[in-house]
């Protein structure tokens, strides 16, 4: 039988690590986020599988034979990928700053993360637009449908992440984000890093691995 001492809610967890008085001793919110991310692996696993199976399927007619891999702009996508990767760094720095109680730095890093995410989304919009200019739309052929579905879903995830980051930024501006809320920022961070690791996979498997 273990004995634990708890402080009143307003005094504990100044270092950002709430003691979780659950039957497991683990934060339920964090556990739920990890379960959600585990299920997201399945969603992206399905979408990536579909793309890999269809990536060389050109349309039947002479006008829809171009597939996304024919018109990838790798140098451009490399820069976008680098930007998203660095946004993971700014995200952990935001969490670290909040843990120290440095609200100004927290806001700066949260805003940087959201802006880097915005640059990534801007790049994706540019890429989609250039594909459309080449005549490769969503219904062009099976390969393009699978490509737009996969990268579009990822883009939606990044956009939702940006909304969450901006919500945290506004909360911080209003003084509602204190070291007691470290776990909230950590959970948004988990989501953000997840969209980053998914892109690490997409960038290698979809963009860089040569198509035979």
């Amino acid at each position, binding site marked *: 039988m273990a004995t634990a*001492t708890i*402080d009143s809610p307003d005094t504990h967890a100044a270092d950002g690590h709430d003691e979780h008085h659950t039957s497991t001793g683990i934060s339920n919110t964090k556990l739920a986020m990890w*379960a959600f991310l585990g299920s997201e692996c399945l969603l992206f696993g399905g979408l990536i599988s579909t793309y890999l199976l269809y990536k060389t399927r050109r349309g039947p007619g002479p006008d829809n034979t171009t597939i996304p891999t024919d018109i990838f702009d790798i140098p451009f996508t490399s820069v976008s990928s680098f930007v998203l990767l660095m946004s993971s760094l700014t995200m952990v720095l935001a969490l670290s700053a909040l843990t120290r109680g440095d609200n100004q730095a927290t806001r700066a890093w949260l805003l940087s993360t959201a802006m880097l995410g915005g640059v990534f989304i801007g790049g994706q919009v540019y890429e989609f637009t250039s594909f459309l200019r080449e005549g490769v739309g969503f219904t062009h052929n099976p390969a393009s449908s699978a490509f737009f579905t996969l990268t579009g879903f990822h883009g939606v995830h990044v956009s939702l992440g940006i909304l969450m980051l901006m919500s945290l930024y506004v909360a911080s501006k209003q003084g509602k984000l204190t070291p007691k809320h470290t776990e909230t920022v950590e959970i948004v961070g988990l989501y953000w890093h997840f969209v980053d690791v998914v892109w690490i996979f997409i960038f290698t498997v979809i963009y860089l691995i040569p198509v035979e």
Partner: protein
Amino acid sequence: MSETLTEPHVDHDDAHEHPSDWAYIKIALILAVFTGIEVLTYFESALPIFENNAVTITTLMVLMVIKFWLVATWFMHLRFDNKIFSQLFVAGLILATGVYVIALAAFEFWG
């Protein structure tokens, strides 16, 4: 104010120390270098060894796994957190791989 309570089991395994900012920056630099190497594989003229597709694919897959592992363990704190979080995430990854293998097999044998 503080009070004492008795509980059957309270295990605060997920309480952990975060690495320093400098540690995070070092990890980001490693990730940046690896991304640079990945992009180099696209420009075969930069390193003729990447004219060989087998070498290119192996290099890309190894770098991807290392980058994935670095972000998951350091930025997502899996190496410092309770093991159950890692187990949930790995379970999702294994199931996702299973989905791909089943879909690939279905297309190979019945497609």
